[in-house]
């Protein structure tokens, strides 16, 4: 018998978000899924409902604006749905030199990666408290630990999520709300990335790349064990260990070398530059 509470997952239509949704459903969580309009959310919701027998609600929202976050929560309240687990997964990634994108893009990126998880946590904290024990899972990245050229804003937003999660965790502990943060490395999600990984990533990089289904399973297991920081995969753990013990100048050279090696050489679609090069 599925529990009457729901898990809210943002950015659930593809990549890690989709597998988090499937993983939650396989554990009999009811779901509220949200993603960009036109991203196939309706089909996915119907599929999950049919295969796993849980209730699935979906709502198409662009979370880059503050208003859409309020609308999302208002919609959930209106339907009388109670949330006991919030997974802030939506994010905008990619690799580009700082002047390649304009202020509008960075505003959107910070909106989705930083503002939306903050506001959603704030809006839902009373709900979560009422339905405790409850969980918040924020999707950061190991990119949040490194100084990465061409991922300036991205890595900073992920560092924010890491610190935000750890701080909020200590604060909400007494309410029996467990805040966890997931820090995955590279994943085979979008097809361009997949091709990129197969063709150009070096050995070390290829070893660390994980399938999103595996990451989702680890994430859910660890979240339900109330872990604070979740780093999936051996190699990602090794990277973080190196980060802790190597001196600054060595780290600087290593990351610069890694990022240069990963410079893309592909242009699969004419008139349409590759958006995402490699998701660290």
């Amino acid at each position, binding site marked *: 018998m599925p529990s009457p509470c729901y898990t809210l997952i943002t950015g659930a239509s593809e990549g890690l978000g989709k597998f988090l949704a499937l993983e939650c459903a396989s554990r009999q969580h009811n779901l509220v899924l949200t993603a960009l309009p036109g991203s196939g959310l309706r089909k996915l919701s119907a599929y999950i409902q049919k295969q796993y027998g849980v209730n699935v609600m979906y709502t198409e929202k662009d979370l880059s604006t503050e208003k859409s976050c309020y609308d999302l929560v208002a919609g959930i309240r209106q339907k009388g749905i109670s949330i006991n687990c919030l997974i802030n997964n939506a994010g905008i990634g990619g690799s580009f030199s700082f002047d390649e994108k304009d202020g509008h893009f960075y505003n959107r990126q910070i909106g989705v990666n930083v503002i939306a998880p903050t506001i959603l946590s704030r809006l839902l904290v009373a709900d979560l408290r009422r339905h405790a024990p409850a969980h918040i899972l924020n999707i950061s990245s190991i990119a949040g630990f490194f100084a990465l050229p061409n991922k300036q804003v991205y890595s900073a937003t992920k560092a924010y999520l890491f610190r935000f999660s750890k701080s909020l965790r200590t604060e909400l502990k007494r309410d029996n709300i467990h805040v966890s943060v997931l820090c995955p490395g590279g994943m085979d999600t979008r097809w361009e990335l*997949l*091709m990129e990984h*197969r063709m150009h990533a070096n050995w070390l990089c290829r070893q660390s790349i994980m399938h999103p289904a595996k990451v989702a399973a680890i994430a859910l297991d660890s979240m339900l064990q109330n872990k604070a920081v979740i780093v999936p995969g051996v190699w990602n753990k090794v990277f973080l260990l190196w980060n802790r013990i190597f001196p600054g100048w060595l780290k600087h050279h290593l990351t610069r070398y890694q990022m240069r090696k990963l410079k893309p050489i592909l242009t699969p679609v004419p008139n349409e530059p590759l958006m995402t090069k490699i998701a660290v």
Partner: protein
Amino acid sequence: MNLFLTGATGYIGHQLALAAAAQGYSVTALVRNLSSPHLPLHPAIRFCKGDITEYSSVIKAMKGCDCAMHAAALTQLWHKDSSQFYRINVMGTRNVLEAALYLGIEKLVFTSSCAVLGPSGDRPVTEDDPRFTPFENDYEVSKHCAEELVREYVRRGLHAVIVSPPRVYGPGLDTRGNPINKIIRNTLKRKLAFLPSAKDVVGNYAFIDDVVAGHFKALEKGESGEKYILGGENISYKQFFETISRAGNQHLQMITVPVALLKGWSALVFTANYLVGRHTHLTPKVVERLVQNRALSCEKAIQEINYHITPFIHGMEQTIHHLKTSSHA
């Protein structure tokens, strides 16, 4: 109706060309070699020299066509230069899609592969099932990427349908894209069947005539952006060889080979060939793939485009008849 076709010198493409010509289409086939022994010769089939990896040759050949079928691909599971999979299967597909969009082609059918779908669990895999396991080789990745490209062009306004055949058997060219006919022939010749110890592992085998008819049904009735599995019956290795025996009216000595031995042997053959600069495509990884359950559901194609499955025994009888009467037998 003018049909643009790629892959006409391959196993499926060859049959597609002949079937299209028989149905009254005027076919323009893009081929790399105008003197290939595999050309489907028919008055209604015109050949254009070109290569899907060269955009200019694709657009030149496609001009004046109403619809298109893209069946060309590097179909083996292993190549010494793995970038060839991406150059041919992804960039090549990109060129075909780009030309089709530019020229306003009404409908396009892309021949993908069930290799993109993962192994099956407790029920047959459908088009909607997400893949829970990583891709195992560059062929699978390249076909997945090509499918995603098709969906991207559908969003840009192209009418395109994806069809996914599994292991295909039946009368046709004796090419690399057609290893099953070879297995059938060798089995009957030697009166000996090498049965992997994983004999209850289920695979899906599609009869070539069904696959070809399915392509035309997808062209006619398929919904743009949708994928249709054009498969056959789900059968185990044991049933596979038993059916060969029955259809060929031939008693077969069944020898069970442990999978580990099969893997070791393939590693040995692969290495020996590699050392003398030759390449076999049966790597231990491919063997591993062959002993996973790969049951499929063709329900969607049956319901939505009126796809028909020939019973395996009937398909096998026709195949064996063909193999016995053709010069290769």
